[in-house]
C-alpha cells in the first residue's frame, strides 16, 4: 500500500505540480515548482524509510544522533556557520546506512529550526542535509577507511550546502533564476561557505574514529 503511494507520488504529483505552477503561479512559477518538488521528494524519501519495519533500537539511535546534532548546533551557535550537524549526519550515515543518514539530516534541520526559527527555507535545508547524509551512506566504505576521502567529502558537502541554499534564495527573490543575483549571493556567502567547509573537516576528523569505536563497543556489549 505505502509502496504504491510512493510510486504514485513520483508518477503523477511532480508533473501535476509543474502544470499547476505553470497555469496558476504565472511569474513565480519556478519558485513554486521548486518548493513543491522539494517537499514531494522529502515525502518520497520518508515513505521509502517507512516501508521497512525498523527495529526500535535503530530508531532510538537515529533519534540520539539527531539530538546530538541539534545540541551541537546550539552549543556552537555563538560562532555563525560553525556547526557539527553535517559531521554527525555523515557519521550516522557511515555506520547506519544511507536511509538513516537521510533521516538524521532532514530531522536535524526540521527540529533545530524549532529553536532557531522555521522559515520557507526549512524544506530546502531538510533536503540538502538529508542528501549529504544519503551520499555519505552511499560512499560509506570509502569514507570509513580513508581520512583523505573523509576530508574531501567534508569540504564538498560544506560547499554544496551553501551553493544549493543559494539557488533557493535566488529563486525565492526573483521567481526566475537570476544569474547575477546568484553569483552575488554565492560571493557574499563565501566566508560562510569557508566556515562550513572548515568546521565540517574539523568535526569529521575529530569525531568519526571515536564515535565509530563507541558504536563498535556497544555492538559487542549488547550483542547487536
Amino acid at each position: 500500500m505505502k509502496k504504491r503511494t510512493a510510486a504514485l507520488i513520483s508518477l503523477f504529483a511532480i508533473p501535476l505540480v509543474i502544470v499547476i505552477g505553470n497555469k496558476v503561479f504565472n511569474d513565480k512559477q519556478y519558485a513554486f515548482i521548486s518548493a513543491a518538488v522539494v517537499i514531494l521528494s522529502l515525502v518520497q524519501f520518508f515513505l521509502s524509510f517507512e516501508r521497512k519495519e525498523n527495529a526500535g533500537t535503530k530508531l532510538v539511535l537515529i533519534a540520539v544522533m539527531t539530538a546530538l546534532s541539534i545540541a551541537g548546533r546550539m552549543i556552537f551557535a555563538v560562532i555563525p556557520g560553525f556547526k557539527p550537524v553535517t559531521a554527525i549526519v555523515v557519521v550516522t550515515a557511515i555506520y547506519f546506512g544511507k536511509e538513516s543518514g537521510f533521516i538524521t539530516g532532514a530531522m536535524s534541520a526540521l527540529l533545530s529550526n524549532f529553536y532557531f526559527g522555521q522559515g520557507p527555507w526549512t524544506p530546502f535545508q531538510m533536503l540538502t542535509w538529508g542528501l549529504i547524509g544519503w551520499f555519505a551512506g552511499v560512499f560509506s566504505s570509502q569514507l570509513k577507511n580513508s581520512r583523505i576521502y573523509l576530508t574531501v567529502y567534508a569540504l564538498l558537502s560544506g560547499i554544496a550546502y551553501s551553493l544549493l541554499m543559494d539557488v533557493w534564495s535566488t529563486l525565492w527573490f526573483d521567481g526566475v533564476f537570476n544569474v547575477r543575483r546568484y553569483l552575488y549571493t554565492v560571493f557574499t556567502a563565501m566566508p560562510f561557505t569557508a566556515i562550513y567547509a572548515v568546521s565540517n573537516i574539523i568535526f569529521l576528523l575529530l569525531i568519526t574514529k571515536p564515535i565509530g569505536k563507541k558504536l563498535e563497543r556497544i555492538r559487542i556489549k549488547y550483542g547487536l
Partner: protein
Amino acid sequence: MSAFAKLHPTVSLLYFASVMSVAMFVTNPVIGLISLFGSVLFCLLLTVRGKKIKEALFYIAVMVLVTVTNPLFSHNGVTPLFFINGNPVTAEAILYGADIALMIVSVMVWCKCFTAVMTSDKLQYLLGRIVPQISLILSMALRFVPMLRRQANKLTRTQKAMGMYSSDSYAERIRSSVSSISVLIGWSLENAVETGKAMRARGYGLKKRTHYSDYRFVTQDAVILIICAVLWGTVLFGMSRGVLDFSYYPQISAIPSEGLSVICYLAYGCISLLPFVLETEEIIRWKYYRSKI
C-alpha cells in the same frame, strides 16, 4: 492558549499553507500589503513577551536592505533615476525590491506565527498516522535535546571535581570539553540501546497500536476549513485567470482593479485576517463574561 491555536492541527496546517502559498508566489503589491497587515496583527496577538520593538527594527532593516540592493542585480526598467558605474538605477528596480521585501518580511512573520501555533506535539500528531517511525524519531529526538543538556551539565561538574578544567587556558578548556563530549556521546548511545530494548520488551512493533491524541475535529474546525477552502479557491481561480497579474519590468503596470481582482483581494483579506478575528472575538467574549461577574 490562543483561540486559533485551539483549532485542530490539520486545519491550522492547511490555513498556513493557503495563506503563505499566496503570499510567497504572487507578485502583486496589494496582496503583499494585505499579507503583511494580517501577519503582523496575528503575530502581535500571539507573542505576549517583550522584544517587539527590537524585532520590528530587524524587519524594517531587512526591508530597507532588500529594497536598496535590488537595483544592483537588475537594470531592467525604463525610468533611470541615476547611474552607478555606468549602470542605470531604475525606479522599477527599486519598487520591485520593495515588493520582494514586503513578501519576504510578511512570509517571515507568518512563519513566526506558524512556529508559535504549530508546536512540536501537533506536528507529531499529524505525522504519526502517515509516517509513524519518523514521528517516533521526532518525538524522541525532541525529548533527548534537554536530556543531553542536563547530562552534559552533570558531566562537566563531575569532571571539574576530578580535576579537569583546572586552568583557564584555551588548550585545557578544549581538552576538557572534548573529554566531556566524548563521555556524553558514549553515555547517550548506551542509553539509546537500553531504551530500544525496553521498547521491545514493552511490545513496540506489534500490530494494532493506538495513537494518543488530544485533538478532536469539531464543528468549528469544519466551518473554518470550508471558509478557508472557498476563499483560497477564489484567489487561485483569480490567479489562473490572470486578474492578479502585475509586472514591474520593463514598465510598472497599473494595479489590477477590475471586478474579479477586487473579489480576490477581499477573499485574501478575509483569509489573512481570520486568525485576528478569531482572537479578537475570544478576547471580547472573555471581557464580556468577566464584566458579568
